[in-house]
């Protein structure tokens, strides 16, 4: 089976990429004593941005204030650098394999505007849920899964329950 999409042709087998991700997590454990996570760094950046624009709202907030509590530089943390590396890794992977292309990915039966509207709404839900669950697919599901955390496995199972339950409603977007 050789799958190909507009982002890789041919794509790596999922097992190979899974080993890449797994090795990255083990390296993070070994070097930094913690796992990886995409949303932790993103939330730090978002809190810092809001703190520049609306300092009172951010500093007076018992949740976001945590993310800017660093005495030195709120963006000088492991997760922010990790996020930077992640963006660079994806960019160079696409550059080397000649898959850099500006486009809007969508199913064959949906227009651009509905696709982007649903994408935005999905993003809001995922952003909210990542904070509620204290992490996302990387930091919570994969890292917590490897640590045998009960919460992480519950999170993972619930992602698939939620996804399968809502799939029928948005089938026109993809199929």
């Amino acid at each position: 089976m050789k799958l190909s999409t507009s982002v890789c042709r041919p794509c790596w087998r999922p097992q190979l990429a899974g080993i890449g991700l797994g090795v990255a997590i083990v390296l993070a454990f070994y070097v930094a004593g913690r796992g990886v996570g995409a949303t932790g760094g993103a939330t730090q950046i978002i809190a810092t941005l809001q703190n520049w624009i609306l300092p009172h709202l951010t500093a007076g907030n018992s949740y976001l204030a945590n993310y800017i509590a660093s005495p030195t530089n709120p963006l000088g943390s492991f997760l922010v650098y990790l996020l930077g590396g992640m963006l660079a890794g994806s960019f160079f992977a696409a550059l080397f394999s000649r898959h850099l292309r500006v486009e809007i990915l969508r199913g064959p039966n949906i227009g651009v505007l509905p696709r982007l509207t649903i994408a935005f709404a999905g993003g809001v839900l995922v952003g909210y849920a990542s904070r509620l669950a204290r992490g996302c697919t990387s930091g919570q599901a994969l890292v917590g899964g490897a640590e045998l955390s009960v919460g992480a496995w519950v999170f993972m199972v619930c992602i698939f329950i939620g996804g399968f339950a809502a799939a029928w409603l948005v089938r026109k977007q993809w199929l």
Partner: protein
Amino acid sequence: MAVIGPLAKTGEISQSLNLWLAAFPIGFLFGYSLQRAGLTDSRKIAAVFYLKDVDVPVLMFTAIVVAALGLWGLSLLEVLDIGHVYFVPTYLAPMAVGGLIFGVGMVMGGYCPGTSFAALVIGKLDALVFALGFLAGTLLFGDLFPIWKGFYESESFGVLRLDQVLGIGLGPTLLLVVLVAVGGSIGLRRLQRYFWHNVDGTVPRGIRVLVGLAILIAAVLAFFPNRSFFAITETAGSMGGWDCGWEDPCESVMVDPLKAGRLAYDYQDRLRCFDLRDPSQYQGSHLQGAVLATPAELETMALDPSTLVILYGRQGDPQVRKAVGTLRQRGLRAFAVEGGFEALEPYYVDPLSSRLEATLSADQLSELEAYRAVCSPRQEPQEGAASR
């Protein structure tokens, strides 16, 4: 013997090396793998939920198996000191509900956060829009935090692992995880084939060998338990909770007055309270036992590592939060009181008003009675700092 990790915690490498020589390249490997496997394509991720392409769960299962065998295997080999590895704590209900919402958002958007960031840098505009939604969702949660604070902090189990719940020991749990991953991958692939006929049933030899190897390693771990199993299951997770500090807030920097009282009550003789307001305000009124200090004084003050530090200032003073960050960086357990002195006053300084009494449950009231001595003069006078 190899150098024992975590390198950044055992002092083998500095913080800046940890960022540039670890975080960045590790992220690079992560992003590179995601993109080369096609996870920067929203259609591929959404296809999972129609069983049309199950690569994503197969990839996740593989990553978990590699990471789990690596983490626990290296600990058994004593290459990694697991007592210094941060473990994600379990908050059952928020994680279950978070997972459900996450899944719905994922099938709508076709991305999870990491993949959307990886996709937007290679030009996918739907990923950019998704990421903007992510930003909005994060701010929605953060800025309206008081609304869901109670639920967010509910059902806290601390670090809770599957092997503790199942009661079958660490080795057999790892074997179980590997078997679930392999079985799940095969099962999902069969469903894909059954519904969509878009894959043939062959599995390349290399993958079979790797799967066999993973099962073999897990079986060895399961059936030949080593003495250090006991040691590592004891220490694993001792870093969970608060120790990760400001870098990834696992325990809130800010606490409300009731939580401050509870912490103070629990720590009693190991407690230090500091008032970061102006001396004139301190003279006017302060918590019993609180010591007047400036952030600069705090920075250089010698404090025992087992101390619990509670700081308060004027309402909304950002210096207090920063001072907590500094103390946490030194490895101290420190908190700032949300709302500052103004918030503490009605609970611990003034006589309890009937208005406040009416807002509290009977349990909270009796707790409050016990806490009312929050920073009480048990350890006062403290050396020097108080007299000014």
